[in-house]
């Protein structure tokens, strides 16, 4: 032994104080009778009493733990303080070495500069390759080559030299025509990656005084043909300036792409600073509960065309769900551009105020009911976003607006405009205002509008306008800007124009009758065009009158459906197949069916008229062998007001 000595025995740490119920424990040990009493007392105690008894021991136990810790850190403890310092120092060294190591292995950076886009990126990329074009799923693939606007579009992919799973796509192309860039990009991603695409997080950040949309998403892909599909992760950084769209998308393992994004993001710059933000958060309003309910009946409508061989969102607005079968009322001008219908529309359902809606299905304007005179249209999805047949009733229920029955609107009455204006980052927004009167000439229904000071802007078109009770008043359709001269100043006043919902009666009638989208059937007329008539049968006639006052209803349509076609089967786009005979009433309400109806037989009858509720009666007409050749089965048909 040299300088060593035997260690002093460590002092015993302070013992824990006896728990609060120690006294009863002592009684248990010393007295059997007392023990049985206490045991039964414990068994009889309720859960709350037991919890309270145990809770009382927490305080002393915590005090004992505190004393133990104080002792361990004190001068008499075997856990010497300088040993803690040694451990802390070693941990600091490990952490410091970790930081140093991270810096040592961090890839060098280089500057990417092309076509107005500049950013710093890790120098870990192989030579760029052109991104193969993906054929649009929703429309037939056009073979046209990209139009090419000078050096655009530029769409290349870089693969990392350190990890082949890490890729960086750079896409620069002409600015999309639709100012709602956020939904436009969401549409691009969804239609490119298919049904297994899922957006994780999306938000707008500012880099270099320019707002950039950062979206994390997942998608599914097979690395090689025949491989098991894998889930991929990606981060997209995108913005627009006055002329172009810039998007940098990173694909790969989440940690790797987050590391690359951390290098790229702060250095992102574009050539021209427009200063226009991508989107502002929607204003939070105190909404009456019925209006809040009405939000669930509001959808976003996105229209898209094939641009440079790719399906691109070119515009959008809002839709009003008016049928539980997924029928959506919107503006005609959304679906048609210079008298040419857009290639497809997609419907996104709202998730709440301030939230970007979720794209759910698609259809075609050329399979919709178009009413250009009133700037109204009725649309319904018939394919999913991958182009496969799809029925809206497959999805979750479509809460729908009922048609407003009363017509009175008072000047100053409060209105709410619901929709997806382009300025709110693609999110559902509500603006409030008041009725400011009616616009238009009497007798010219197409010019008939409700004027309001509620804000209606790009993207609101086709959206519902409701009153405080949540009743559908009209459809936001247009704005009128009035410029006046006040001294040396020009003043502009914007008035929102709302198409009254009564104007959409024929479209409501179509929804009530039932319809399935069909190519070329864009007319809102319910009349059959070319039905296959029977050669022999009974010639039918009757009178159609209003239920309220017995007045004849001119222009009413009466149709006899083929045997086997019931009320639920009616499809106004297939009337030529479903109707066996029909006729329209004259000014006196008399209607003479054009085609004979075979006897014997039982038929479903459908009667419609503007301003009146359609009437569909299963088996309402029965003919037998004794029925005379000219016959009025009902005397008169009474229709109730709509």
């Amino acid at each position, binding site marked *: 032994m040299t300088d060593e000595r035997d260690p002093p025995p460590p002092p015993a740490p302070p013992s824990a104080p006896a728990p609060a119920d120690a006294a009863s424990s002592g009684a248990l040990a010393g007295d059997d009778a007392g023990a049985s009493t206490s045991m039964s007392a414990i068994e009889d105690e309720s859960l709350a009493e037991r919890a309270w008894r145990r809770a009382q021991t927490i305080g002393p136990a915590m005090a004992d733990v505190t004393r133990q810790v104080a002792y361990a850190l004190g001068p008499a403890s075997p856990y010497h303080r*300088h040993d803690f310092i040694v451990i802390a120092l070693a941990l600091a060294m490990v952490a410091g070495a970790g930081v140093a190591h991270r810096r040592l292995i961090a890839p060098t950076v280089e500057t990417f500069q092309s076509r107005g886009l500049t950013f710093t990126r890790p120098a870990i990329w192989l030579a760029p390759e052109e991104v193969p074009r993906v054929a649009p799923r929703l429309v037939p693939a056009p073979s046209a080559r990209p139009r090419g606007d000078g050096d655009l579009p530029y769409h290349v992919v870089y693969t990392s030299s350190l990890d082949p799973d890490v890729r960086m796509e750079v896409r620069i192309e002409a600015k999309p025509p639709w100012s709602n860039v956020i939904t436009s990009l969401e549409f691009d991603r969804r239609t490119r990656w298919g049904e297994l695409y899922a957006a994780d997080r999306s938000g707008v950040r500012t880099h270099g005084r320019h707002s950039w949309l950062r979206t994390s998403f997942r998608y599914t892909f097979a690395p090689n043909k025949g491989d098991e599909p894998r889930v991929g992760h990606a981060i997209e950084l995108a913005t627009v300036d006055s002329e172009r769209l810039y998007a940098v998308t990173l694909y790969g393992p989440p940690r790797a792409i987050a590391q690359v994004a951390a290098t790229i993001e702060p250095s992102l710059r574009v050539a021209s600073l427009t200063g226009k933000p991508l989107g502002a958060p929607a204003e939070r309003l105190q909404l009456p509960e019925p209006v809040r309910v009405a939000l669930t009946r509001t959808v976003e409508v996105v229209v898209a065309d094939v641009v440079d061989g790719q399906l691109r969102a070119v515009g959008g607005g809002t839709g009003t769900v008016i049928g539980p079968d997924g029928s959506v009322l919107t503006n005609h001008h959304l679906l048609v551009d210079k008298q040419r219908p857009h290639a497809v529309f997609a419907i996104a359902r709202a998730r709440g105020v301030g939230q970007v809606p979720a794209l759910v299905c698609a259809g075609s304007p050329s399979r919709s009911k178009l009413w250009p005179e009133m700037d109204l249209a009725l649309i319904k999805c018939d394919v999913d976003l991958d182009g496969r047949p799809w029925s809206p009733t497959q999805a979750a229920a479509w809460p729908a607006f009922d048609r407003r029955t009363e017509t009175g609107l008072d000047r100053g009455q409060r209105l709410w405009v619901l929709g997806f204006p382009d300025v709110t980052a693609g999110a559902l927004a509500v603006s409030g205002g008041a009725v400011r009167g009616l616009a238009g000439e009497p007798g010219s229904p197409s010019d008939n509008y409700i004027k309001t000071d509620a804000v209606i802007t790009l993207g609101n078109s086709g959206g519902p306008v409701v009153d405080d009770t949540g009743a559908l008043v009209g459809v936001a359709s247009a704005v009128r800007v009035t410029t006046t001269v006040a001294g040396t100043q020009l003043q502009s006043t914007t008035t929102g124009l709302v198409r009254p919902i009564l104007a959409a009666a024929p479209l409501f009638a179509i929804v009530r009758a039932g319809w399935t989208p069909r190519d070329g059937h864009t007319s809102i007329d319910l009349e059959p065009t070319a039905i296959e008539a029977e050669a022999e049968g009974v010639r039918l006639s009757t009178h159609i009158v209003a239920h309220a006052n017995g007045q004849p209803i001119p222009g009413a349509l009466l149709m006899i459906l083929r045997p086997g076609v019931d009320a639920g089967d009616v499809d106004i786009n297939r009337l030529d197949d479903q109707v066996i005979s029909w006729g329209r009433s004259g000014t006196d309400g008399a209607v003479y069916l054009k085609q004979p109806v075979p006897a014997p037989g039982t038929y479903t009858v459908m009667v419609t008229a503007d301003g009146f509720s359609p009437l569909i009666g299963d088996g309402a007409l029965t003919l037998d062998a004794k029925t005379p050749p000219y016959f009025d089965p009902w005397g008169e048909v009474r229709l109730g007001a709509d």
Partner: protein
Amino acid sequence: MAAPLPRWSLRRARLLVGSKLALVVGLVLFVGLAWLIEQVIGLRGPVRMSPVVAIVVAGVPASLWLAFFYLQDRYEPEPMHFVFGVFLLGTLVAAPLADFVIYQLAPPQPLGQFGLGPFALERVVHAIAVVGLAQELCKYVVVRYTIYTSPEFDEPMDGVVYMMSVGTGYAVWLNYHRLQGLGGTIYLSTGAAEAVITTLAHASFAGFLGYVLGRAKFTRRGPVSRGVLLFLGLVGAACLNGVFSLVVDWVMTQGLASHPWKGVGLAAALAVAVFALLIIFVQRLLHDSPFRKEGAR
């Protein structure tokens, strides 16, 4: 004039040497058996080990080494359950704790640019100051805050015994994960040999730190000197640990080819060298042991 050695002491010494020799032979046989199985079955590629088999392959050499180290403390053997308990702490506490510390303080970088040289600065920093230091620190902490405060830790030699136990336990965790890594496929013979060598290496690094720990506990010097001594011991053990990893990696993969047996051979040489150095220290501690009887060798 020195007193003649008692007969019992000689017998015990011979028994000890015989036991140690038997344990070393057992370790060699373990590797030989794995090689033989490979030859007999005609294995040309790696095997996929079930978790149970991997635990056995990692645990057998650790058990033999643990017994070997236990016999080093010939004057006042420690309670076996304490030694085994510390061994388990090495496997179940120190190793997971070290992995946690390394992951938290120096998380893996998915896109790291490493130099091609085997001793590039970033590799050295990572092997010594990150992995080596964190591993040795966790082994140290486990012993320092458990058995160190016990009355059984009553001589400097105990530091070596307990630290080697925790190092052996730590190696079980490492070996298990190596055997289960790469999709659970590994060459049987080199895997078994690596398990033997890694156990010896980690036990030796920890033993070196245990030597310092034992010295520090019983020194008469002040707290600052104790702290400096402990810290230098930690850094020394971390350096041994890191250099061992670097050299083995370098030899195992030279150029684009893999040379597993070269790596195993060099690792064995390094581990034995460190262990031999430790034995010299141990002899000194045993010579100064308060429990050594006068005249005993």
